């Protein structure tokens, strides 16, 4: 039977299965094949915190959503139009998201009585008619995989069944006309250590393709043309990968040794893992005994003249507070990366939230201002880390970078920058080399413009000096309990951070109409959903402006002006209104919040609706 090929402009696929089914790997691989094809894309992995939750259970379901298109897209998609469900639990937890009429591919072999019971299904959904509203493809993945692997020796049946995700990958690759060479190469690499396992996965993958091509189950496949992106070389990148590359770039572009100290914590550990591999760049990574030590070690490295970096998530930020306070007091560079996750306390380690902004802002005793930055997309994590390094080095201050679980594990195509075009960080700082005050060295004599103190590193003759957390005398840096001096030093530290606003870009407003009366002000990972929601509103002839903050402290110098230029200001956040509080307090605007703390990013549709409600637009 000749099969037809249908052209579509975008698809949202969700792979869902048991934690042990390899859904993240499958999704990742499909994403890379999609990226190489030139589609624009955004991904949203969603997995439980448990490493191997009990098989077949509802809470053990792991999912990976990918939105790809022939045009510029902003989010991983609100709802899938293709759902791959590897077992009843995956079907049960995901089916309500599948768009009406959407394509559902299920592993029919997994729908035995026991699995159905585990998923709390009273009746088999494949036979009870409840799936009538979808285009259902029942594929006996277990049988087909075992059949394809017949004759491979040295593998048990259980081992063989592990390859069924590659069968699914093959099938989907055929269905959406993905290139297969890359995936084959990848399988060989990944399982290179064990030839039988590599062979099994390769055979399963090919069998999946052949199954789509030859059986009569599927009558058509799809193509999605490449998107019109800026010319250049691209790769697909997650936020955590971008952070890692940003750190390497910061070391290269500053000429400084980078020392990153961390402690394993979800979803930040990948930064430590990835960076530990780049020893060729002279980068040193330390896995410390705890979060406290890793902040302290990073500060020790900065004192020594390296770029000290520590990476963590919210629970770790709690513990690093005291070191950040010390860094404020001793005025040394320190980059603190906080990959936010749902809190409080352990919260939901693998789920996203923007709950740490006020912690970053105020989470220290005393008056302890720091610079704060927030990345707005996975690829932006690269640029934001370079900016963090620039500010830390130039102003000798801790800089907290806020990313989150959504950015950390989500991915998008990234146009590779020219190394030469990256900021030159060597101009951001210089080490002190000699006396700065009447033949003496005063460690707290500030640069008049930046208010930064000199960075005199051990090994520099004649500049021996002591720093510490006790209040210092303005200039000499000697211990001082003088009340007026403390007041002055407190002001100086605050002015130094506030002064950064002169050194950062003004806030740009996206308002194609130029006449919007409502401003949507947002920050961090909500960029995609907010931009997408604003587009939808504009498509319905509603004028709306969007401004997105990357510098959270200090704010861009024109933020007040921008806010006062609109009748209505709406602040959507994945928290209970933290930026909202800051702008209301600082600029006395009657801004209103839209808040979602569900461990997941905003969907464009729900945000559009919420914005309409705020703007009192009748639906």
């Amino acid at each position, binding site marked *: 039977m000749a099969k037809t090929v249908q052209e579509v402009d975008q698809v949202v696929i969700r792979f869902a299965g048991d934690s042990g089914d390899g859904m993240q790997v499958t999704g990742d691989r499909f994403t890379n094949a999609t990226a190489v094809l030139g589609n624009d894309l955004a991904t949203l992995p969603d997995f439980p915190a448990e490493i191997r939750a009990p098989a077949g259970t509802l809470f053990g379901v792991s999912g990976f959503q990918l939105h790809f298109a022939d045009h510029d897209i902003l989010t991983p998609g609100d709802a899938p139009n293709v759902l791959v469900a590897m077992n009843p639990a995956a079907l049960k937890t995901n089916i309500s998201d599948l768009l009406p009429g959407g394509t559902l591919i299920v592993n029919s072999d997994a729908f035995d009585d026991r699995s159905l019971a585990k998923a709390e299904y009273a009746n088999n959904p494949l036979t009870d008619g409840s799936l009538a509203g979808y285009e259902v493809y029942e594929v006996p993945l277990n049988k087909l995989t075992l059949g394809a692997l017949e004759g491979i020796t040295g593998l048990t049946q259980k081992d063989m069944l592990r390859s069924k995700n590659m069968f699914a990958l093959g099938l989907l690759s055929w269905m959406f006309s993905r290139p297969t060479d890359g995936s084959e190469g990848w399988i060989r690499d990944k399982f290179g250590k064990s030839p039988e396992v590599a062979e099994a996965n390769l055979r399963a993958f090919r069998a999946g393709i052949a199954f789509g091509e030859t059986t009569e189950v599927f009558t058509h496949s799809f193509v999605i043309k490449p998107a019109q992106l800026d010319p250049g*070389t691209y790769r697909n990148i997650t936020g955590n990968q971008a952070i890692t590359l940003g750190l390497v770039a910061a070391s290269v572009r500053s000429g400084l040794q980078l020392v990153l100290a961390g402690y394993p914590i979800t979803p930040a550990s990948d930064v430590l893992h990835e960076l530990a591999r780049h*020893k*060729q760049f002279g980068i*040193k990574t330390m896995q410390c*005994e705890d979060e406290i030590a890793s902040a*302290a070690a990073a500060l*020790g490295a900065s004192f020594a003249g390296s770029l000290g970096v520590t990476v963590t998530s919210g629970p770790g930020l709690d513990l690093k507070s005291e070191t950040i306070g010390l860094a404020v007091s001793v005025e040394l560079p320190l980059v603190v990366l906080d990959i936010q996750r749902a809190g409080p306390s352990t919260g939901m380690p693998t789920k996203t939230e923007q709950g740490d902004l006020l912690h970053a802002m105020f989470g220290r005793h005393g008056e302890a201002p720091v610079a704060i930055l927030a990345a707005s997309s996975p690829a932006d994590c690269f640029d934001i880390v370079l900016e963090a390094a620039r500010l830390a080095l130039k102003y000798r201050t801790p800089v907290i970078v806020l990313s989150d679980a959504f950015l950390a594990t989500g991915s998008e195509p990234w146009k590779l920058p020219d*190394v030469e075009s990256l900021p030159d960080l060597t101009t951001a700082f210089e080490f002190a080399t000699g006396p700065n005050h009447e033949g003496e060295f005063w460690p707290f004599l500030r640069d008049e413009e930046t208010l930064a103190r000199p960075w005199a590193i051990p090994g520099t003759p004649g500049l*021996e000096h002591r720093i510490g957390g006790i209040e210092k005398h303005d200039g000499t840096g000697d*211990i001082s309990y003088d009340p007026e001096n403390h007041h002055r030093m407190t002001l100086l530290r605050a002015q130094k951070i506030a002064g950064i606003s002169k050194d950062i870009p003004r806030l740009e407003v996206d308002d194609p109409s130029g006449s919007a009366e409502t401003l949507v002000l947002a920050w961090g990972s909500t960029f995609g959903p907010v931009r997408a929601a604003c587009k939808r509103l504009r498509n319905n002839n509603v004028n709306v402006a969007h401004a997105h903050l990357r510098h959270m402290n200090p704010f861009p110098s024109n933020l007040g002006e921008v806010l006062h230029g609109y009748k209505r200001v709406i602040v959507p956040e994945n928290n209970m209104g933290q930026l909202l509080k800051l702008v209301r307090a600082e600029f006395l605007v009657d801004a209103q919040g839209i808040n979602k703390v569900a461990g997941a990013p905003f969907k464009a549709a729900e945000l559009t609706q919420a914005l309409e409600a705020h703007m009192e637009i009748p639906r």
Partner: protein
Amino acid sequence: MTSNGNGQVIQLTKKDFESDQQVRWCPGCGDYAILATVQSFMPELGIPRENIVFISGIGCAARFPYYMETYGMHGIHGRAPAIASGLAVARPDLNVWVVSGDGDALSIGGNHLIHAMRRNVNMTILMFNNQIYGLTKGQYSPTSELGKVTKSTPFGSADYPFNPISLALGAEASFVARTIDNDRAHFTEILRKAVAHKGTKFIEVYQNCNIFNDGAFDAVRDPRSGRENRIYLEDKKPIRFGKDESKGVIMDSDAQLKIVDVEEVGEARLLVHDENAVIPGRAFALSRLSHSPTGPVPLGIFRSVERPVYEDLVEQQIAQAKERGGPGDLAKLLRQGETWEVS
């Protein structure tokens, strides 16, 4: 010696290591003697002043770096070993010291202390043990004796104390020693041996806090009566002490160490100290000879063994990576993995 900035090397004296800061310990505090000993020893180190860094946490002892004309950081409570670890990893060329007290090192900073020793980061840790919290005005510390009556324990402490030497040995420290604040000759000798050792040097210093815990170490510290109780450990020599070296230490059949009359048991039975013994069992047994400094107490080097140094291994991995793949190439790194062109 140090370079004077013009590339000339000049001989330094104790004075060169005294900062211009007024020393603010209580008059009569044992810290003064420690500071004088360390400052006097520094010229002998033969390391330029600018390459020496003192790191501390919080407490009376932690003020130490302010008084040393070297680089220094007065950090946060308990975190000095962690700050110093980052410093040493970043700059293995520096000579790193940590100055801490019993509360700072063993209570709030216990975790950092044991892990620094386990990793064998190259630094000298001076732990001033005064068995009390001084700076916060006299609460019991993790080395205070059971039953100690303090402000926070009006009915006596119910906390069993740490034995710092046992703890350091248990934490795999490669160099473990004990000395006394007012015994300058012994203290200096320990410092000399410590700086010659590569790795973490843990030195417990009995320090008198004459304000909140005066006389805690009198049994060994008193210049006259205390001498009797000082068991000076000398490498590869039988362990003897007391008046005319009449007493000694033997290992009993049950592997317990015992203090004996040398004449009674004969010199041949005395335990011969071996600070380089690979198995730390004997050093540990020696540390248990006295849990608190109320009777005969071993002083000197309990253990000194070679073990890979953390930051050296870090450097080695970098050198190997560069040797294998050449120096890092950022443009190449960015292009790693699957890329595609859009024209």
